[in-house]
């Protein structure tokens, strides 16, 4: 049996639901030394800002139980070099690219979007709104519905009408469904759930924060239950919105549970560090899992964890015993 792995994220058709996560696969060159990255559905590139950026001082990472904290601070070459070097390489390599953009003012997001209009190989934008909002008291855009919506509106206005826009949400909010509604109303075509969870590690020797930035973003299997919960909540509230699920995916089985929770595609982030081959393996394992259940189309398992979307669930559950 051949399993259909192609997914349609609201018009954006990818041959495979397994993607890389922003910031965990750079722009593809390094990963291509491990496995053939053209087998992925798409590369989501590290969030790019307008100007070159050095990021935060080191230490920038701390291992935590089943997870890690990072405070890279969006080190990167700036949009121009990103387009000329990274996007050109990715386009030549034939990998669909979802370009992640980040800024600290709304107008930066708009400008980034304009610059990317004619960039090669970009099939969608992912808008990383988990950045401090310098327009408004340094709160993070993703934490309040209005600033989040403003960014997405600006990006939507500046993007070609047929370029899908994914808003990447932070789990560090009281009501993620409220933020999801706000960005979708503002023009997001899809959502990426979730960014890292704000955390802190303290060195038991020095009793000081391990990270020079004090706090950092928690990622990896430790946050998988949080990611699944966010996806499940948002899917229940927005039955039709395409969702890219991310947070602690390590295996085809994990991917399957993300799809069941409501994701239409899955990004592998931190686990790339643990197993550089992970994205390729997850995709193979997912296909095997589906085959073993007699499911011929990956889209059939999407939403199965919701009582109210038991699409073909009998087939899946019975074949699975």
């Amino acid at each position, binding site marked *: 049996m051949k399993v259909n792995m192609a997914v349609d994220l609201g018009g954006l058709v990818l041959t495979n639901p397994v993607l890389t996560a922003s910031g965990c696969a750079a722009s593809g060159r390094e990963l*291509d030394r491990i496995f053939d990255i053209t087998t992925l559905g798409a590369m989501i590139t590290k969030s790019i800002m307008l100007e070159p950026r050095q*990021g935060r001082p080191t230490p920038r990472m701390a291992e935590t139980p089943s997870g890690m904290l990072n405070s890279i601070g969006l080190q990167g070459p700036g949009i121009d070099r990103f387009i000329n070097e990274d996007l050109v390489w990715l386009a030549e390599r034939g990998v669909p690219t979802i370009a992640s953009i980040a800024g600290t003012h709304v107008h930066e997001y708009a400008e980034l979007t304009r610059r990317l209009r004619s960039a090669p190989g970009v099939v969608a934008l992912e808008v990383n709104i988990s950045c401090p909002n310098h327009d408004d008291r340094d709160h993070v855009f993703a934490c309040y519905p209005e600033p989040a919506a403003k960014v997405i509106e600006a990006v939507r206005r500046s993007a070609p009408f047929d370029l899908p826009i994914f808003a990447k949400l932070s789990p560090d909010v009281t009501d993620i469904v409220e933020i999801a509604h706000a960005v979708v109303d503002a023009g997001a075509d899809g959502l990426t759930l979730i960014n890292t969870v704000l955390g802190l590690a303290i060195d038991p020797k020095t009793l000081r924060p391990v990270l020079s930035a004090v706090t950092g973003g928690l990622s990896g299997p430790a946050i998988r239950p949080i990611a699944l919960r966010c996806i499940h909540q948002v899917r229940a509230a927005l039955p039709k919105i395409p969702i890219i699920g991310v947070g602690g995916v390590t295996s085809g089985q994990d991917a399957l549970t993300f799809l069941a929770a409501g994701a239409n595609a899955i990004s592998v982030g931190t686990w790339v560090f643990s197993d550089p081959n992970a994205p390729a393996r997850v995709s193979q394992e997912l296909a095997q899992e589906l085959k073993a259940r007699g499911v011929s189309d990956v889209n059939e398992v999407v939403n199965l964890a919701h009582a109210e979307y038991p699409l073909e669930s009998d087939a899946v559950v019975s074949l699975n015993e």
Partner: protein
Amino acid sequence: MNTPSASLGKNRIHQIDAEVLATRRAGAYTVLTLSANQIAAAAKPGQFVTCSVGEVGTGLILRRAFSIHDVTSTGGQGGTIDVVVAPHGGGTQWLAQRRRYDKVNVSGPLGQGFKVPREPVSCVLVGGGYGSAPLFFLAKVLAARGCRIEMILGGATADKVFGILESRRAANSTTLVTEDGTLGVTGRVTDVLVDSINRFDAKAIYACGPMGMLAAISELAVDAEVACQVAVEEAMACGFGVCMTCVLPIKGDDEVPRLVRACVAGPVFACEQVAWHL
């Protein structure tokens, strides 16, 4: 439109479930010999590997980096690499407890190795603690080029000086240094370095060890006007260039320091490239 995967090229990083062929204690350290044919075949001195640690369900999710200490490459299937493990936190403790026949997932070779001189010159190789590990693979290559090799091996205490016996074969001469004086000269490797440079008319210094030691060596090397390469150690999450955790300030041709990934641009740098005081 797809070009053939770059992963098939010579830059390929191998990831192998390597069998532990042998383990031995060396002072405070454990040396593991791993069957890792493809890595052994491609490795250059100064490069490193990363190992997964822990059993199924482990909470230690990140790989640990280790310099390649030795390589045997038969040309056939039997290539092996040796790594020197200093038990420190949970991951290195786990690795140091591996026994024969156990499997360890190894990825490599990673990073840029040491540049070796074209001419058969005198070289001083300076190692602190387990930082001495990569110097022995390097010494093999230098010796094959006819270089004269002086080793300076240091450590806080005698059990932390790595490679005492091996250095007899690997180097033309060796100076041992301990901070507490339990072995060799009492003091630090920098206390004996200038003397070694002068004595052997050294044209190249290679150093690996704690950052403080490398900074001090760099200063001496610059003063002595001897070319010096250092293998640095920065905390690494991925080891192959995708996470940006391992950066350190490296000066470009314009002398401006920029944060550069130690895992792909290094771990070996020319000592004058590193902006030690940032």
